[in-house]
């Protein structure tokens, strides 16, 4: 039986969302850059956003047919929804957050105890949300959604607000949720590595349309495949630092790039994807920054793209890099060919393909 079938069309003005997707479970991944419409799809399925055209079924039950049909309100769709901001109710304890749903599995039931155990929520039950860390909040949000016994769980960038070690922790928990609790999920992410770990099936969104569909390794890995990345750098692996969860790559010209830990051997080559809008540019080398990658670059070309400026740079003689900045930023920094800049990239923003 199909878990979800959805046809969604909406004209946002700056782009049009037009997708038709389906999933037989267990986990469907939706991949794409920021602004491609990923989160909107989840909002529509959850019943929080009504597009111009929608035809949505969950477990063969029509929850939305618009225009000209019925619309089931969010509280009756039996769809759990977890976002990157855990959105715990601040005036309720963890226990009361977990049991907020009017129909929920009891914490003392077999199912409830399993969820508490898998998500390690036991020690947190009597605490206030304000006293939880980011990872703990995300675990509680997951537990709250699972205890409401949803037919389908929607996860909107559940790890993007977490640092890399917490993100790995939540990723491991989601794998347990998938394997032990066996709740069908749709997970949205702009990090290919997360979907490669979790999803059984994957769609790639670009500008509101499905650009590719298939197994995660087919559509997300390898140079030349549709990945949604503006930059795909083919680099030599220098060394691994497992304690820090990073791998260093050789950029040439004396520079190195830190990316999430991968399994490629030192000396071999791997592809690293970077989104253009995740690169920050500055004119002077910053100090005291949390990002590991502060790369010297030389601007080659600046072109207009709607509200943005596309800045093409060279890292040394052979590696090129593209960044997206606003027109105002390009003007303030006086970005023009020949200008020397520093490109800042978080290691977590790089994806080893």
């Amino acid at each position, binding site marked *: 039986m199909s878990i979800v079938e959805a046809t969604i069309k909406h004209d946002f003005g700056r782009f049009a969302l037009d997708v038709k997707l389906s999933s037989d479970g267990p986990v469907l991944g939706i991949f794409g850059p920021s602004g491609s419409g990923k989160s909107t799809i989840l909002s529509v399925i959850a019943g929080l956003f009504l597009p111009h055209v929608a035809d949505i079924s969950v477990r063969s039950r029509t929850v939305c047919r618009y225009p000209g049909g019925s619309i089931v309100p969010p*509280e009756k769709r039996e769809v759990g929804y977890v976002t990157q901001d855990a959105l715990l109710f601040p005036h309720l304890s963890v226990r009361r957050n977990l049991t907020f749903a009017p129909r929920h599995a009891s914490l003392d039931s077999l199912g409830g105890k399993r969820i508490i155990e898998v998500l390690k929520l036991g020690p947190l039950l009597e605490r206030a949300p304000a006293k939880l860390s980011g990872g703990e909040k995300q675990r509680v949000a997951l537990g709250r959604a699972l205890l409401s016994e949803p037919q389908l769980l929607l996860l909107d960038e559940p790890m993007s607000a977490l640092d890399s070690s917490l993100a790995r922790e939540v990723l491991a928990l989601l794998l347990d949720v998938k394997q032990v609790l066996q709740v069908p999920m749709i997970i949205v992410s702009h990090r290919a590595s997360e979907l490669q770990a979790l999803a059984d099936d994957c769609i790639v969104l670009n500008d509101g349309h499905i650009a590719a569909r298939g197994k995660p390794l087919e559509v997300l890995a390898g140079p030349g495949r549709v990945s949604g990345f503006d930059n795909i750098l083919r680099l030599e692996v220098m060394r691994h630092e497992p304690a820090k969860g990073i791998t260093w790559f050789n950029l040439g010209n004396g520079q190195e790039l830190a990316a999430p830990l991968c399994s490629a051997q030192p000396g071999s080559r791997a592809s690293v994807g970077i989104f253009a809008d995740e690169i920050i540019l500055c004119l002077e080398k910053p100090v005291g920054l949390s990002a590991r990658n502060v790369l010297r670059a030389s601007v080659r070309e600046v072109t207009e793209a709607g509200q943005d400026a596309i800045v093409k740079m060279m890292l040394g003689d052979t590696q090129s890099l593209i960044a997206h900045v606003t027109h105002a930023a390009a003007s303030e920094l006086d970005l023009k060919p020949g200008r020397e800049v520093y490109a800042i990239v978080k290691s977590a923003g790089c994806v080893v393909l």
Partner: protein
Amino acid sequence: MLTLRVGALSVAVSLVPGILIGWLLARWESPLRALVQGMVMLPLVLPPVVTGYLLLRVFGRGGPLGAAYEAITGGRIAFTTMACVIAAAVVGFPLLVESIRLSVLGVDKRLEQTSRTLGRGRFGTFLRVTLPLSLPGIVGGSVLTFARSLGEFGATIILAGDIEGETRTIPIAVYSALNAVDGEAAVWRFVAVSVALSLAALMLAFAFMSWQRRRLA
């Protein structure tokens, strides 16, 4: 005691409509919202005696509501304690609604959406999420309404008059005492009571809001 009773009752009768209208003005997306907000805020900008006169036209014996009340119960509204309560409630209502509106605006809509995805309907979400989280505004607005009623004179003197034991609230008593030959001592007593009551109400409200902030921080 009459002043306290009028203050408490004016808050009591205003609370439910104040919460509903405050919520509506915070969440309702319609071009009519500005009109409704303007009408609610009107008593704040009108001279209190004008408000009192308009209330007298409605609740007086010749007014639609006053005549209907008299026909049903045989009693009257104008120049009774009930008139004091109505006058205080009307002039304090904008303060209550605005405080609640701002408080509801401060409640993250995504929390309400989360509540809906967890199975709570609109009313359940309002009771369990919106209302508790906008409590500081409700308490603050109630205190402002109460404090406003302690000082309400213009609308009260027009609608309720000056009847000892029935409608002579502290502000009206001060006015009467000022017009009396040896009234200054009485004036000072009334002023002291008025200041003490207002201060106590404000301190209670600040203490509650501070506690709520610490609880949620």
